[in-house]
């Protein structure tokens, strides 16, 4: 039954080569921790992706309860913490996961750097990786404001002031960030939109590029 359904789709869309390429490609021994323990450093990239996946999932569940307006945001987060089943755990996952992504990504970047994996022909994948790093930092900056507590409010105020002190374009950037001159209602809805719509879109595109390039170029050989 399943086989028939698969064949029906495959006959029309020819999907077999797509997953066959991923499933059947050979993984060389120098990245296999089961053969050489020190190869665990090659796991950092995959683990970063794993944490990003948990971030997306926990974020989707948080979005079910979170309210992005200045009167209710803090109360909705408090509600998640105190009332929602496993709310504290899901928020904890999203909070700690944010730091963990940075840590794992930094380790992954160090691994790529010290093994010289960014060298020809993989220069473009390094650039995409750096862009992913910046997108993740932007996730952190916008997400920090969303609980709308004192810490969030004043950190964003200071962040915006720093952006505002850039010569010439500073005030313009500050207004663009905050939607005004101060952190307020517009800032919160703006950061929320960036955090849950703009950045995930950018991240998914960049991750897709990152992975497609790995498949077309393959991973770098042993040192």
């Amino acid at each position, binding site marked *: 039954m399943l086989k028939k359904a698969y064949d029906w789709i495959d006959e029309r869309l020819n999907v077999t080569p797509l997953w066959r390429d*991923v*499933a*059947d*490609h*050979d*993984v060389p*021994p*120098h990245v*296999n*921790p089961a*053969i050489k323990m020190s190869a*665990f450093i090659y*796991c950092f990239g*995959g*683990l970063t992706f*794993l944490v990003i996946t*948990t971030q997306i999932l926990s974020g989707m569940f948080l979005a079910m309860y979170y309210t992005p307006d200045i009167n209710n945001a*803090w109360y909705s987060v*408090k509600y998640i*913490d105190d009332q929602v089943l496993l709310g*504290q755990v899901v928020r*904890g*996952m999203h909070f*700690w*996961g*944010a*730091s963990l992504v940075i840590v794992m990504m930094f380790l992954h970047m*160090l691994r790529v*750097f*010290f*093994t*010289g994996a*960014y*060298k*020809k022909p*993989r*220069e473009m994948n*390094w650039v995409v990786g*750096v862009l992913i*790093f*910046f997108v993740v*930092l932007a996730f*952190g*900056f916008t997400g920090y404001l969303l*609980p709308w*507590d*004192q*810490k*969030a*409010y*004043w*950190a964003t*105020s*200071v*962040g915006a002031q720093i952006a505002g*002190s*850039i010569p010439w374009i500073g005030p313009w950037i500050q207004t663009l960030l905050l939607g005004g001159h101060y952190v*307020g209602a517009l800032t919160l809805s703006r950061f929320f939109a960036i955090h849950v719509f703009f950045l995930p879109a950018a991240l998914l595109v960049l991750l897709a590029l990152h992975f497609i390039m790995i498949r077309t170029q393959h991973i*770098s050989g042993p*040192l």
Partner: protein
Amino acid sequence: MAEGERIPGTPRYRHSLQVHSGFEPFFPNFLLKEWIVGAVFLFAFALWIVFNPVDLGPKANPDDTTFIPIPDWYFLFLYQILKYYPGSQIVVGVVLVPLIGTLLLLFTPWLDVSTERHPYKRPIATAVMVLVTFLVIWLTNEARVQHLAETGQLSSNANLPQLKPVSASQIKFSDTNMPGYKLFESTCATCHGSKGEGHIGPPIYAIGHFWNEQQLKDFVENPSGGMPPKGGLPSDKQVDQVVAWLVKQSHSGGGY
């Protein structure tokens, strides 16, 4: 065994008879191993989450300008750089350093163009990266330490007696006819709670159990952790009176 031949097709007892090239197919062999690593990692992550609940601070209050803000920890190194370029030099910290860092990072593949990949065979690139990594870690820690000092949470406070939190109803003060008690109620209680159970300031209901009169006096005269000097009392005489009463509170509750 030819490269890419699927290991699951071979009985386990024959594996040792084959010359293992080390290559194995991604699915399912390698993916299963990756899942094991991922499962261990997720388990550790879950344990961390359960034992480190996230606290929600007080609701944002734009009028409260006394709050000392700090960026999330992964921005601290950038934040710290700003402090070294005050006033008109701020352009260096806000634009120049981050811009150079960004460009160096983006264009790494075109700066380190040798075909050598081993870190020892390209000492300049390796040395720069090691240096930058240590610098970032050092700057992050420096920002953290300075923030703790600003908010009065530095290690000198670690020596302060940490009293068990108890509810006010379980605390029984003695010698409440002394003048020091009146002063405690009108001044200290604002921060430490009417029974010394702790409020803005830490619990001190049985402080006499930990400190003698001299230690108490020394601390109140020159306190840390955001407490005002002399605890906000106007004269030394009143400090003496409060301390004389406080030191008698050694068995007021909490099992001390």
